[in-house]
Every structure is written in C-alpha cells, then in structure tokens.
C-alpha cells in the first residue's frame, strides 16, 4: 500500500519546520509576494513617484521655487497650523477618553465588554461619509440640537453650528475613538488580573494600583495608539470638508482645492510630499518607541 514518491534527496532541505508547519522554497516565496510588489510598485509607489516627478520636471531650481512659493503662502501656513492643532486636540481627547473607556470596559463584566466592543466596531464598519452626514443632521439649523434647544426655550433663533472647528473636532473624535480604544483595550486584556490582586494584597489602594501597576504597563500601548490617531488625523478630508467648511479646511482639503479647483497640480504635489514626509517621520518615531519598548519588556 505504500505509494512511491519522487523526491530529490538533499540533506538540510526540510519540507517543514516543527514550529511553523510547511515550508516552501525561496523562489516560491519570491513568486508569492511578487503580485503584491507589482501592484504596490505601480499603484502605490507609482503615484508617489509621479508627485515627485511633477515637482521636479522642470529642474531642481523650479522645484525649489515651488517649495518656496508654498512655504511663503499665508493660507498654507494657517491651514498647516490648523491641521496640526486639530490633529493634536483630536489625539489628546481620543487617547484620554479612549483610555478611560478601555479601562472601564476592562473592569466590567463579560457581557458589558462584548456589547461595548460591538458598539465600538460599529463606526469602524459604517461609512465615514454616512457618519459625517449624521453629524450634519445633529448640528444643522433644523437639526436635533437646535430643535431641542428651541423647544426648551433656551434659544430664540436656531444657532449656526456647522462650519466650525468644534463640530469638526466632534466628528473627528468619533471617527478616531475606536482607533484609540481598541489597541489600549487589547493591551489591558493582556495584563494578568493576578497582578492587580497581588498589588491589592501588598496593600495598594485602588488609585495606587492604577498609577503604579496598570498605567506603567499600558502606557506604551497608549503611546502607539496616540501616534496612530495623530497620523490618521493629519490626513482627514471628509469630516472637515462637510462639517468644517472652507474656514476649517485641513491640509488634505487644501491640496484637493489646489488640484481640482485651481488646477495647481504642482502646488498640491509639494504639499502632498510634505505631508508624506511628516507622516513618515512620525511613523519612524513610533517604530522606535515600539522597538525600545519591546527591548524593555524583554
């Protein structure tokens, strides 16, 4: 009943690794990632290279002039500054609220945990456009908030709330909260509950256990969440466009206006590349925090 197999006797060419399972050869490995590389090469790096080429297609001097023009532009200054400010505020609120929420969930029963988790996942799945539309329904002249305020006689005239930065913040924090809660919650889940019991037995009060045990063990997760939230916030487009209007535009909106409305592809390209560089720097810092923390844990 033994079948005969053809094989090349080769010492050291194991077909499997005990702790990994099947192992295929290097050429197959290259073949398996080549479609990914092809698509990313042409349609991910391609666009980035196209931007850089658009900037440099009339020589380095012209590129320098483009950069100079953008950097001297007052509108660019104010938009860039606003982008950083908004992203920073969104990050702070999201991480503080997200940490509190994650901690509260962690200390709750399994039922509360799973319901809360499902409700947190909900906005991740629903469209950002739809969620932003929902906020306009809340804040518009005839929206819920104005209706309620008028009904209780708190105001005589409907307030104009849309097209302002606070509403943008509310919308963006809603979008970013899951990105803050989930990594922090995961870090908390990986903590051993016996640690808390041990700390309590050692005589620590609730607050001491939190500041001396829980916080130090989870601050790296919170830091990674913060950088993630900040990076994604920098690139927001839809929420400021709908809730903020022109006065609350962020850098993505400005790039879009430059390219689509003013046909200024080169200016948009310069701003895009600057945004990309800032993003990459932040991610580099994040990876350093991550790896340093990994060493620390070991």
């Amino acid at each position: 009943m033994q079948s005969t197999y053809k094989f090349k006797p080769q010492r050291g060419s194991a077909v499997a690794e005990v702790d990994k399972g099947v192992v295929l050869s290097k050429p197959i490995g290259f073949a398996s990632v080549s479609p990914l590389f092809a698509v990313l090469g042409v349609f991910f790096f391609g666009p980035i290279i196209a931007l850089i080429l658009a900037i440099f297609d009339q020589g380095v001097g012209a590129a320098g002039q483009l950069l100079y023009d953008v950097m001297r532009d007052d509108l660019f200054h104010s938009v860039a500054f606003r982008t950083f400010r908004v992203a920073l505020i969104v990050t702070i609120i999201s991480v503080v609220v997200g940490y509190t929420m994650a901690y509260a969930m962690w200390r709750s029963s399994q039922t509360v945990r799973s319901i809360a988790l499902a409700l947190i996942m909900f906005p991740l799945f629903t469209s950002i456009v739809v969620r932003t539309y929902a906020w306009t329904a809340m804040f518009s002249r005839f929206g819920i908030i104005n209706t309620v305020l008028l009904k209780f006689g708190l105001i005589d005239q409907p307030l104009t709330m849309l097209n302002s930065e606070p509403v943008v913040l509310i919308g963006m924090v809603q979008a970013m909260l899951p990105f803050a809660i989930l990594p922090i919650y995961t870090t908390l889940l990986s903590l051993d509950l016996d640690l808390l019991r041990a700390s309590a037995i050692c005589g620590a009060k609730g607050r001491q256990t939190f500041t001396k045990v829980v916080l130090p063990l989870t601050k790296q997760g919170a830091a990674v969440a913060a950088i993630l939230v900040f990076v994604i916030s920098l690139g927001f487009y839809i929420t400021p466009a709908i809730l903020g209007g022109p006065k609350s535009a962020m850098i993505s909106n400005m790039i879009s206006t430059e390219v689509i409305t003013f046909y200024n592809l080169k200016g948009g390209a310069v701003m895009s590349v600057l945004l990309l560089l800032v993003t990459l720097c932040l991610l580099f810092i994040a990876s350093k925090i991550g790896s340093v923390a990994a060493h620390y844990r070991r």
Partner: protein
Amino acid sequence: MGDTANIRRIRFLLIALVALYLTGPTLVVVWLSFSTDDVLRFPPQLFSWRWYQEFVFDERWNEAVLRTLFVGGLATLFSTTIGSIAAFGVARTKLPAKRLVEALAIAPLVVPPIILATGGYSLFAKLDMIGSNIGLAVLHTVLGVPYVYLIVASALARIDPSIELAALSLGANRWRTIRDVTMPVNLPAIITGGLFAFLISFDEVVVTVFVSGSLAPTLPVRIFSSLSMAASPVVAAVSTVQIIIAVVLMCMAGILQRWQRRWAEAAPAM
C-alpha cells in the same frame, strides 16, 4: 474586584455615553430615512418608504450603486488574492527580509489618502487612465491589501503547525498539504479579509473623486457631493442602506473570526 456599587454605576454610565456618542447619530439617520417630510427636520413625520422608492427608481443613484459594486467587487477580488498569497508566502516559505515585506504590505494603511489621490491623479493623467473603472479598482486594491494581509497573516500564525505536520506524515506532499489543510483552515480569515477590502472600497471617497474624471460617481462620492448642497432625505435612505450592508458584513466577519479562532483553538488539546 471589590468595586463599590457607585463606581460600577459610573463606569457603566461612561461606557453607555461613549457608546451612544459612537453610534447614536448614525442611528438617527435611520430614523430620518422613514420621514414623510420634504426636508430634513426634527422630529420627522413618520412613516413612509418614499425616500427609498426615490433611491431605487432614480437612475443616477442606480448608476452609482452599479459602479460601486463593480469597482468594489474587482478591488475585493484583487486585494484578497494578492494579500492572501503574500501572507502565505511570508508565513510558509524561506523568503528573506520578511519584515520588509510586511512593512510594505501595511504601508498604504498609514499614508494619508490624499497622497494616493493626487499621486494617482498625476499618474493616471500620464497613463491616460482617468475615468478607468479598473484603474480605480486597482487603487482601491492598494488600500484594501493591508487589511487582507494582516487578517490572513494573523490567522496563519495562530493555526497549530502540527496539523500541517500531520498531513505530511499521513502522506501528503507540501502542495497537497497547503491545498487540503492550510488553505481550507484559513479560508474564514481570507473571506474576512475580503469583506474588509470590500468595505474599504465601498467607503472610499478621496481617491475616487480624483481619478473618476467624467464617470458617474460611486455611492459614497454621491452622498458626499450631495451633502455639500442641501441634503434631501433621500441621502438618509441611501445611508441607511449602506449602514445595513455594513452591519451585515460586520456580523459575517464576526462569525467568520469566531469560527477561525475556534479552529485554531481546537487543535491544541484543551
């Protein structure tokens, strides 16, 4: 642990408030979509299907739906195939520099979409691909691949390697083992990855606006552009449909994930 009733109450209140903030406004949209009013107002006059009828019988909305499904379907197909194969390659071959491959596969996740939008626009302008559905689908593929990769890679890492060793010991060669064991055991994760990829495309606005040219907008782009003008309640109906689709996909993903996890846990005894 020994929390007082008060602390527990505060905790519950906090969770409820955050959950309300995250989901409440979106659910209000569902409520609005059944309004009989001509304009958005509160509380809406209930109950009618008129905005759904308007959505279903409006040619321009139909066009948007068809284009969204076409582009989304293609993007899902592409990113699921490419992402899964790459995840398999990293997990199951002697490929060098796996870290680098991983970093590249995840990169589109963290790069602001406007960069892919402006860059894609200038690239497509050169390649004369503005307005190409396939071109748009490939850009959406770039955005969906990281999700597929991450989900499939983590499933591959969780599966007990000894089931593959078992197949080898029973007489299956490596390709048979991958076909009969590794692939089917990871199928739930591959499908989950595909669901995510579809949702990403289904939700994408920025890149789509830039490279669509004169083509009909996709569903999210249509919602987006009708918001800049006075939004008719038909948007609420469209949004509700989108919410329902998203929730259904989310539940499917949840079920598949649980399935996958149970399989992974089934292998190590107890």
